[in-house]
Structures are given as structure tokens and as C-alpha cells.
């Protein structure tokens, strides 16, 4: 009997992470694309860290950082009443940080590739930064936005190490599909493991295929 909850939880996590990450990443991408600040390389390095760090390292430090024994963990749990460790909320927060470079880098590259004169024309017209961003800049980097959204979504679907460290393996709460596969293999239940793995494989293939088709169509339209 296959339990569909891990798959539903995986997609719920991927959708929540992608939506929240998109809105959080946009101001950061704008700043990174147009700032002349000397702190830019430092921030860029921090954002890119999840690309090279083993997920368990990140998970381990999140675990320590969010523990009720730390100032932050204690404040979150006792003052705000938010318990992040071994909860779905905690998975979303850590997934956002873990997938940050997949959202930030394509959008930042897209914004940097636009002529600076678009931004300056908007400024001289007296438009606000928000108006310039939403009316001029973002609509002209659609391929970068689609790439960022799909990569973040696909990357969150495939998370394992961070999710295991922060969420544990609680059925219905934090047991996502990647962990369910591991459990089924451990239990030598290959049929179930194969089902979860096949769903993740097909979904990942389809979302990546959609990026290439959409971007190819966009570029063809705008080059003609």
C-alpha cells in the first residue's frame, strides 16, 4: 500500500518555498544587480554557499542555530511561539535558504544583462523603484524568472540532507518523498521506493523540459 503523503508534502514544500523565495529574492537580486557597494562580493558568496556546501553541513548549523538552547531558538519558541525544528515551517525556512542561489543567480544575471539605460530612463521619468522593477525590469527578464522559479522548485523537490537534519522523519509532518525513498530502501521495499523515485524523476524532467520549451519560445519570439 503506497502512502501518498510524502509526495503531497514534497510538492507542498516545493510550492511554499518557491513562492516565498521569489518575493524574498527579488529585492536582493535588484540590490546585487545594481549596487556599487564593496560588500557585494561578500553577500554574493553567502548566497552561493549552498551550491558548494554539503547539505548536512548546512542542516547541522541550522539545527544548532535554531535549537531552543540558543538565543534565536529560545526567542522564536518562547516569545513568538514558533517552533521551527522538526516542523513543516522549519523545513520551509531552511529550504528557502538552501535554494537561495537557484532563485537569486538567474534573476540577478537577467537584471544585470539589461541595458542600464532602462533603469535610468525610469528614474528620470520619476518612477519609483517598485514601479521600475515591476513595469520595466522584471517583464524584460521573463526567461531568467522562469528558470529561477523552476530550478528552485526542482531543487526543493530533491532536498534530502537538510530536510532530514531539520525535519527529522516524522510521517505526515516532515517525511518528504526523498526521505520516504530512503526509508523504503532501508526496509527493502523496492516497489514503493521505485514509485516515489519515478514520480520525482518524471516531475523533475517535466519541469526542466518546460523551462527549455518556454525560454526557447520566448527567445524565438523576441529575436524575430
Amino acid at each position, binding site marked *: 500500500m503506497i502512502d501518498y503523503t510524502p509526495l503531497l508534502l514534497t510538492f507542498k514544500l516545493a510550492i511554499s518555498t518557491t513562492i516565498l523565495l521569489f518575493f524574498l529574492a527579488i529585492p536582493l537580486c535588484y540590490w546585487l544587480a545594481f549596487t556599487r557597494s564593496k560588500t557585494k562580493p561578500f553577500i554574493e558568496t553567502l548566497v552561493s554557499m549552498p551550491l558548494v556546501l554539503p547539505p548536512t553541513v548546512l542542516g547541522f548549523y541550522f539545527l544548532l542555530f535554531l535549537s531552543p538552547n540558543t538565543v534565536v531558538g529560545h526567542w522564536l519558541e518562547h516569545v513568538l511561539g514558533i517552533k521551527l525544528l522538526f516542523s513543516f515551517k522549519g523545513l520551509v525556512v531552511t529550504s528557502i535558504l538552501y535554494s537561495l542561489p537557484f532563485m537569486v543567480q538567474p534573476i540577478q544575471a537577467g537584471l544585470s544583462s539589461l*541595458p542600464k539605460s*532602462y533603469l*535610468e*530612463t525610469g528614474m*528620470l*521619468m*520619476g518612477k519609483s523603484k517598485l514601479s521600475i522593477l515591476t513595469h520595466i525590469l522584471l*517583464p524584460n527578464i521573463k526567461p531568467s524568472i522562469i528558470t529561477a522559479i523552476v530550478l528552485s522548485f526542482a531543487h526543493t523537490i530533491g532536498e534530502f540532507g537538510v530536510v532530514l537534519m531539520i525535519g527529522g522523519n516524522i510521517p505526515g509532518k516532515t517525511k518528504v518523498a526523498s526521505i520516504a525513498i530512503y526509508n523504503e530502501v532501508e526496509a527493502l521495499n523496492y516497489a514503493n521506493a521505485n514509485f516515489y523515485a519515478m514520480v520525482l524523476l518524471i516531475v523533475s524532467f517535466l519541469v526542466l523540459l518546460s523551462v527549455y520549451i518556454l525560454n526557447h519560445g520566448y527567445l524565438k519570439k523576441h529575436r*524575430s
Partner: protein
Amino acid sequence: MISCHIKKTYHSKKKAFHLNINVKFKSNCINVLFGTSGSGKTSVLRLLSGLDTPDSGKITHNHSVWFNEAKKEALKPSERNIAYVFQDNALFPNMSVLKNIQFASKEENKTLLNNLISTLELRHLLHQKPNELSGGQKQRVALARALVQQPDLLLLDEPFAAIDETLRTKLQSYLKTLQQKYQFTIIMVSHNLQEVLSIAQHVVILNYGEVIDQGNPKILVRANPKNTLKATVLHIDASTVTVLLATQQINIHISKITTNSFSVGDIVEVSL
């Protein structure tokens, strides 16, 4: 009157470029900034617009102070009521021609919008996207989008550089018509001597970051022998030297001097 007394040093990897500008642009007329490539023309436009900040000095427009380093005053670009047509036009690719123009409009002014669309012959292009337009059409849309903002000052950075001669003459005529109709100040960058003579009412000559002269363009060419510009010698024969001055080939008759002192490829100074 736009009075501009500023200094700015631009640092690049190879060397520093010093801009030292003391100039007065006339109100309600077409001012042209003329000079060779790298003389600092675009930099002056950027400093006037507020997109770049001078290191020192003062910029005033009539009685309004736009920049005063001594008093730490600097109006934001959006507060100067300037429209700027960049070299690349900067038309927003996601918007149609009509949307591009409407987006720039500070207040709904259908009469002005319709007048500009008619004068610049844009009505049949309104629903097209910038990537569907020719170079000349893009320039006309960029002009309409700039003028719909009802600016006090219109900055044009080599607006007709990538356009053929016939179309350039037509666009110059549009510009003159609109300037006379709406009475605003234009500062236009050009390195085309012919263009300066045909359109400018006031010309400012820049050379290596400094203003070497300013005034009526015809007077500058005919009566100011002190002004010199660097040019490359292209060809020498018995009585004529052909030089490349900015983008123009100019024939200079040299019957009274010998040509032994320079040869083809040399950089020489030419008096206007």
C-alpha cells in the same frame, strides 16, 4: 539659461579622465555639444541629468540650483524635469509603442499625446513592439516618449548617429518643429559637423574634457581660428590635405605651407 561649472574625474583601469566644464547653455533653443569621441560629451549629459554626480562645482537652471557641491545640494534626477534620449533609445521591449509613450506621461494629456503621435507620424505603429521597428521609427518613438513628459530640458545623446542621411534630415526637421512648437531647451550630443551646422542654434565645442569654445555655430567655424581640434591625416597631395575630423572627412587647402612636416596617419591640430 543652464549654467554648468563642474569638475569630475573618471577613473578607469588605464588612466584617469578629467572633465572640467565651464559652460552656459541657452534656454529654449537647440544647443549642440560637439567634439571628438572621448571628449566627454556624454559625461556632460549624465552630469547635467544627475545620473552622475560631479566632484565639485555648481549647476543651475534659471534660478533653480540643481547641484552645488559647496552647499551639499543635489536635486534628484527626477526632480530636474529632464527627459533623456539615450544612444540606444532605451525603449522598453515589453511595451508597445503606445504603452511606452503613455508610461512616460506624468499626467493624462490626450491633446499632447495626439499631437506628438501626429507630428512624428506614429499612428500606424502604436500597437507594435520596439523590436518590430526600424532605427528611424525607434528614434521617433523615443522622441515622443521624451516629449510627452513635458520636460524643461531634453538631452539627446547622438540621436541620429545610426541613421542614414535622408532619414536624419527628416528627424532633424521633426526636432526643430517640436522645439519651436513646445519651446523647451535641447542639449544634443553630436560629432557630425554637418549636423551641427544644420540644426544647432548654440554650439559648445569640447576637447579632452574641456570646453574650448561656444557660440553661434557659423561664427565658430568661420571666425574663431584659435579653436583647434585633433584630426588624422588621411591623404596629402600638392595643394590639399584630407583629414578625418571626428567622423567627417575635410579637405584643407594648404598652398601657403609645405607638407613636409607631417605625413598620412599623423594626428594634427586643425583650426576651425
